[in-house]
Structures are given as C-alpha cells and as structure tokens.
C-alpha cells in the first residue's frame, strides 16, 4: 500500500460523479485519511502466496436458454423516469 495517504479528493469525487462543496471536501479528506491509515494495517500481512477470494463458496458457471422472460412493458419500465416523452427518457441536450 502506498505510504503517502493524502487522497486527491477532487479527482476521486470526479470519478465517483459526486459534486462536493469545499466544506465536504475538507471534512471528507480528513476522515478518509484516517480510515486509510487504519486500512494500512493490512500491510502487516504477507499475502504473496495467497489467492484472492471474490466469492465465499465455490462457483460454477450458470447457463440458461437464450429466451426472453419476465420483461417489463415500456410503461412499467419507464414509470420511475424523471422526465419522459414518447416512450423515451428525456435528457439535457449534450451535443450542439
């Protein structure tokens, strides 16, 4: 794990797509630095010969017939859309 923990909060918030106020940025960086400091504890463990666990039990591939089922009608699928028109989701204009 990297030695220097200071998190570039603006960069990470951008990746996470969350706008932060200056106040939130300074509070969060302090808290995240202390959490990361704690997490560094894992460096005490030698894991060079350990396989990672992604899933707690043995996994197997799951196949099924390529057959549509349980699909929602358009009105149902769009019921929670903030803004819609003619069965399409309205978004702000993004091209000139």
């Amino acid at each position, binding site marked *: 794990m990297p030695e220097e923990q200071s998190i570039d909060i603006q960069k990470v918030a951008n990746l996470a*797509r969350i706008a932060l106020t200056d106040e939130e940025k300074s509070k969060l960086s302090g808290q995240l630095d202390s959490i990361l400091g704690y997490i560094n504890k894992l460096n005490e463990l030698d894991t060079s010969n*350990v396989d990672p666990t992604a899933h707690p039990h043995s996994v197997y591939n799951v196949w099924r017939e390529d057959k549509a089922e349980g699909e*929602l009608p358009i009105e149902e699928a769009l019921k929670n859309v903030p803004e819609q028109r003619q069965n399409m989701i309205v978004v702000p204009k993004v091209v000139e």
Partner: protein
Amino acid sequence: MGEELQFKTAGELSDLLKGGSVSSVEIVQAFIDRVESVDDRVRAFNSYDAEDALAQARASDERRAKAERLGELDGIPVGLKDNLAVKGQPLTCSSKILESFVSPYDGTCIQKLKANGAILWGRLNMDEFAMGSSTENSGTHTTSNPWDLDRIPGGSSGGSAAAVAACETPVALGSDTGGSIRQPASHCGVVGLKPTYGRVSRYGLAAFASSLDQIGPIARNIDDAALLLNAISGYDPHDSTSYKIDVPDFRKAAADDSDRKWTIGLPKEYLEENSDAAAIKPVLDAIEFYKSQGIEFKEISLPHTEYAVATYYIIATAEASSNLARYDGIRYTSRAESFDGKDSIDIYHQSRALGFGEEVKRRVILGTYVLSSGYYDAYYLKAQKCRTLIRSDFERAFESVDAIMTPTSPTPATLKGAHAEDPLAMYLSDIYTISANLAGIPGLSLPCGYVDGLPVGLQVLGKPFKEDEILKLGWIFESAHAYKDHHPSL
C-alpha cells in the same frame, strides 16, 4: 397483555388462524392499531399502506374459508426493510435519491412470501443503502430503540428490529452485509439470522456489496425465524450466486429433541481484547448455561480477526461504489433541477450530490479510490487476499467445533449521536459480525439478557449451510429463557 394479538409470535398467530378463532383481518388491524399508537415514538416505519394490508388480509380470510390456505404464513404480517422490491410499493433505501421510486417487480423473496400467503406489511427504516449501524444515516429519520427511546436501535436493519421488538409486526425481513440483521436484533432484544451466502436469493434486494449481502429474518423467537427462513430459502435462476443445495425444514430441525453431542468454539480474539467485560456478562452467563446442559466448549483461535474490519471496508465500499453507479439522475432516480448545461455529465454530479447522504458519499468515494487506477492491487486485491485468510481461519476452526459463540456487539445500544463525527469508531463496532459475511457463513443473534435494562445478544456462527444447527443451538437456550415474552414498555 400477553393475550393481545400484537404480542403473539407468527407461529402462535398461524395456529390461531388455523383453529379459526381469529381472522387475518383482525390480526392485521391489531398491528395497524399498534403502529398507530407507538410508532410516533419508535419511528420504525418509513411508510405503510393500511388499506392495502387489510385487502391482503381479506383475501387470506377468503382463502381460508375455502380451505385453500397457501402456507404457514397465510394471513401473517411480514414487515419489510425498505430495500426489498414489492411491485407497486415504494422502495426508498431510506435515500432521497429514491424518494419517489416505486418497484416495477417483485423480488424473489417477495414472490415466495406471496406464494405463502403472507401479508406484506410496511416499509421499514434503515441506514441509507444499508450503510451504517444505527439508522442515523437514514435519509428520512432516525429510528428509536424501543427499550430506551434515546438510544439507537442498531442498523442497518434498525427499523425491522425495532418494529419486531415493539410488536408492530410479528416478524420482518432485513438484510445483512456486515452485521445489519444481527447487530440491531441484539440491540433490540430479538432474534436475527443472517443465512449462508447463497441460501436466499438476492434478486429484488437493492444491492450494497454483492459478495456480502444476504436477506434474512428478524423475529421474537427462534421458531419464527425458522418459519420465515423456510419461506424465503432456495436456489433462484435470477440470482446466479444463490446455491443449489437442499433446504431442510428449519422449524423442525430447531425443535428436534434428539440427543446430539455439541462442541462449541470460543474465539479467544473475541473475548479477550475487545470487550468491556460488564457489557458482555449476559453472553458469558449464557455460555455457562450451555455448559450446564452438557455442551462442550473449547478455546479456538481466529488469528486474522483484527484485520477483518479493514478488509471489509475495502471490499464493501468498492462493491458499493460500483453498485451505486446506477443512481445517476437519468433513468429512475430523482434528478437535480439545476446543473451546468454545457457539461454533459454535470447532471450526474449534481443529482448524486443532492440525492446521497454523507455516509453514502463517504463510502462511494472511498470505494472509488480503492478501485482507481494505481491503487487497485494495493487495496482491493490485497483485501481479497486477506479475505481468503479470514475465511481459512473459520474453515480450520470448524474442523474441530460445530459452531462458534461470541457476543454480537461489543456494547449494548449506544445513545443517539455517539459516533456522529467519527465514522471509523462506528466501523469498529462491527468487529464481531463482519467476519461471517467475509467468510460467507451463517450467523444468528439471540437475546441472552440485559445490561442496565438494555438487551444483549449472543451470536452463534455456524458452518456453511448449517442454519439448522445454529437455530437448534439457539432453541436450547431459548427453551429455558422466555425472552419472547419480554416486551419494552411503550
């Protein structure tokens, strides 16, 4: 007081319905009345639809009249954590970003409850997106502990545990990612079970950390937890991580009286260092009770225990940052009204800034960081390797013991606001529960006594898919201690 319907367990109510002495409408009305008289103080519910519950009850009574009872739960209310999808009901995850969301489909657990005839009863408060241990991170309000209204009920399934403890529902479903069923059950003096990862389908559960999440029951006794687990367990093609394995009758297994020799492990790492001895005295007393019943105990070691919290907070936040990317302000969440029209992605930034609360932002940002370019191997991959070590600790321990007993929580319920400015302190309070999620094993919390009038929970951890065994062990204690009849005065 014990004669009133709201104080009865689901099993008792099911027998009364079978005997024809009460109707489902009377039962549901008793719980509506109870909620209307106590929930202004407990505040376990985000919302409920009394008319809809009564309509479900009438349909149940009609089935019974025609001898078409669907299952043991036919006519019995089941409260739902507000992250489970029921077609036509709100699903908020206690988040502003989902405040207007209505589920377009039923999750698998809900389909199973409906097939059993259960009354789907209310949407129960939680920490936003299940991130927290107190319900103080709820975007709507903080639920109170029914045993002391100034204290937290625990979390994240705090609404579910408080509603069961306050007799606002006989049973409820919660979800457990790092202790979110067991810790609030412990704080509220009720039974909570996190099943083995894969025992219950997660289809229709709003995802927090997909390799850790499980849905499970909260109830006032072991029998009801088993009854609910019977109803929701099983392989589901809609969740490829649900497991193809036989589902025993958990109710029957828990009540089975045949003699069996048990060996229980006591992890020295849990009992030595972390706990305030007075706070866990009822747990030590419960262990003495088990010894008096001829059950053998031996000290075991889970040497990587001290690394569990750090491992968990990398894996859980990484998975959360990915899962919560779907809440984007475009498709089905609330959308910010003002954003920079020249910057096409500002609508995401602003909608998420408005819609997510502080803890969710903190975890999504931490999770994004540990997955970001240049840090992935150092954090996420490292944590997955540490997870292997923690899992192996349990595999080794279970070679010589049938189950493991520990406190559920280092302390009883704390006062509201105790961890407000120190998220790390809150994370550390999950120390006893999170390893079970990392290892994928089942865990039960059952009430075992009180400290200063506050309930304390005993945790029983079992081998993978051996929920029947930990329920049986819980039953042995419960048969001699009637905590189901202890109710907070409200």
